[in-house]
């Protein structure tokens, strides 16, 4: 009774124009979107455009630049350091991604078994991904020390496999493989936990049906696990590729591009030229030259997402 009378009584209550304004949908939409769109337009979209523009100028720190067209890009194409950085960025991304996914998938498959303390194991495995990259990179720097490396100590003094300590970061290829190893180490947990989530959605009845039909373990993996995991694998792969390709922290912390600029990724080279070197225009051009690859990876990601919806019986939208 009381509620009915209240409801009847409500409409006549004169709402102030302010209250009505706040209940007017278009106004509310604009109000809600404003902080998010404002932040992103000012600090993301505008800098993106500004970066592309800077790439066509000869801006230095403390001096506004002038339009010089493609000059930065032309000089970069004749710059051996830049070309080496491009090659090394692709190589780093390719090898590290293969390593991360092979080991991450293996770890996810291991964790998908019935294990004691499963949630505890899952929790500690994520630690390398949670801890600030630079800080774990410093630990790797110490592990890769030429004189006191614990890896060299184990190989030489404990196992006697080598007769001299490895110069991890002083030699070009040693430094490159050391960086790739550190990157794989950091990437495994992310890949493993995401793929584990995907594995857990696969119905066990599929495996049972395959077992009855006499499928071997490898056939079950190849014909059931992998296809069912494909959609989530594609998304995780795209994320991982984009963030490995634009990696900065690991290389900056462990080698700073050395020895002799041989481990500069495009991101660290852009930083080196732009901030300590002062050549903002040239640095921006290096950073911008990463964009085509990122667009390609993103388009790939979009189609992977769309395919996923279609596979689940949803609409493509």
């Amino acid at each position: 009774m009381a509620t009915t009378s209240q409801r009847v009584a409500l409409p006549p209550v004169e709402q102030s124009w302010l209250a009505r304004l706040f209940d007017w949908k278009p106004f509310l939409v604009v109000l809600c979107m404003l902080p998010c769109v404002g932040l992103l337009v000012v600090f993301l979209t505008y800098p993106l455009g500004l970066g592309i523009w800077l790439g066509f100028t000869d801006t230095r720190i403390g001096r506004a630049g002038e339009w010089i067209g493609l000059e930065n890009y032309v000089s970069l194409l004749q710059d051996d350091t830049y070309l080496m950085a491009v090659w090394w960025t692709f190589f780093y991304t390719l090898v590290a991604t293969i390593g991360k996914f092979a080991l991450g998938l293996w770890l996810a498959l291991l964790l998908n078994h019935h294990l004691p303390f499963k949630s505890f194991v899952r929790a500690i495995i994520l630690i390398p991904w949670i801890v600030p990259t630079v800080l774990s990179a410093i630990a790797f720097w110490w592990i890769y020390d030429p004189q006191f490396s614990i890896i060299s100590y184990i190989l030489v003094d404990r196992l006697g496999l080598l007769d001299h300590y490895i110069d991890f970061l002083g030699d070009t290829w040693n430094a490159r493989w050391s960086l790739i190893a550190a990157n794989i180490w950091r990437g495994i947990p992310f890949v493993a936990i995401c793929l584990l989530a995907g594995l857990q959605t696969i119905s066990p009845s599929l495996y049972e049906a395959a077992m009855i039909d006499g499928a071997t373990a490898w056939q079950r993996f190849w014909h059931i696990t992998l296809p069912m995991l494909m959609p989530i694998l594609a998304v995780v792969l795209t994320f991982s590729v984009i963030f490995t390709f634009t990696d900065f922290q690991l290389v900056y912390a462990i080698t700073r591009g050395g020895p002799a600029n041989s481990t500069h990724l495009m991101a660290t080279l852009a930083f080196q030229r732009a901030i300590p070197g002062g050549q903002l225009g040239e640095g921006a051009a290096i950073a911008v030259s990463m964009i085509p690859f990122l667009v390609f990876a993103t388009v790939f990601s979009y189609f992977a997402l769309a395919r996923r919806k279609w596979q689940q019986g949803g609409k493509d939208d």
Partner: protein
Amino acid sequence: MTEAATAAAAPTTFVERSGPLEWASLPRRVVTVYLPLACFVVVLLFPFYWMAITTFKSNEELYDYKNFNPFWVSSPTLANINKLLFQTDYPSWLVTTMTVAVVATALSLFASVLAAYAIQRLRFKGSQWVGLAIYLAYLVPPSILFIPLATMVFQLGLFDSPLALILTYPTFLVPFCTWLLIGYFKSIPYELEECALIDGATRLQILWRITLPLAVPGLISAGIFAFTLSWNEFIYALAFIQSAEKKTVPVAVLTQLVEGDVYHWGSLMAGALLGSIPVAIFYSFFVEYYVSSLTGAVKE
């Protein structure tokens, strides 16, 4: 009835029969599962063990593998931590990092909650395109933004100020949080809001009184994730902050604790350890939220 019975029976048959993979005998299981898993755990955790053990070693022990076992500390010392806390700006780096992370997280959460609510619940024309644009914004890495942002920061007079970090961190926090919260709001039944609407609540009242309290787990996920991401951020903090006492922990450990060519590994490792502990503690409280937001964000 039969349906209910099979539904109730299903979990037990699942446990019994999750078997195909478990048919293997125990020794075989040890070799194929436990041994590789143990190797993974050891390799993934070793750098942290090494970081911790180095922190507590004295200098003579640190550089002498002949007389001391390098895998253990024979006489633990707090000298490295002591040096870090009282002879460097470490406490002020911690405070700066904490302030920046907390404020940037709060700002991003505020912006993302409103945006996610508008996109998912107010459903204006083109809202799905805005959602897609925000997803794409997450894919723009800081490595290509820091140079133009550095010029902007300089022109706005924010160079060398924590405010520069507070304003730029949302560029990667807001897309992530919004995306996560859109997924979370989707899981809250719309009927609850319709009831409130019929009872005469305004839209903002609905958001504040009904949707937000129900979305608390999602907010926690987004919040802890944003906090961790801002604590870990490196490239902006490296490019925008110059004076030693205003740096954030990751940048300061790398740039301030390395003096010339002599690396003081003891205090470097102590700095890395102390910088990792706040996120590690944070993480240990909210493991499940981390896992759910990590996997949720990928699945969405």
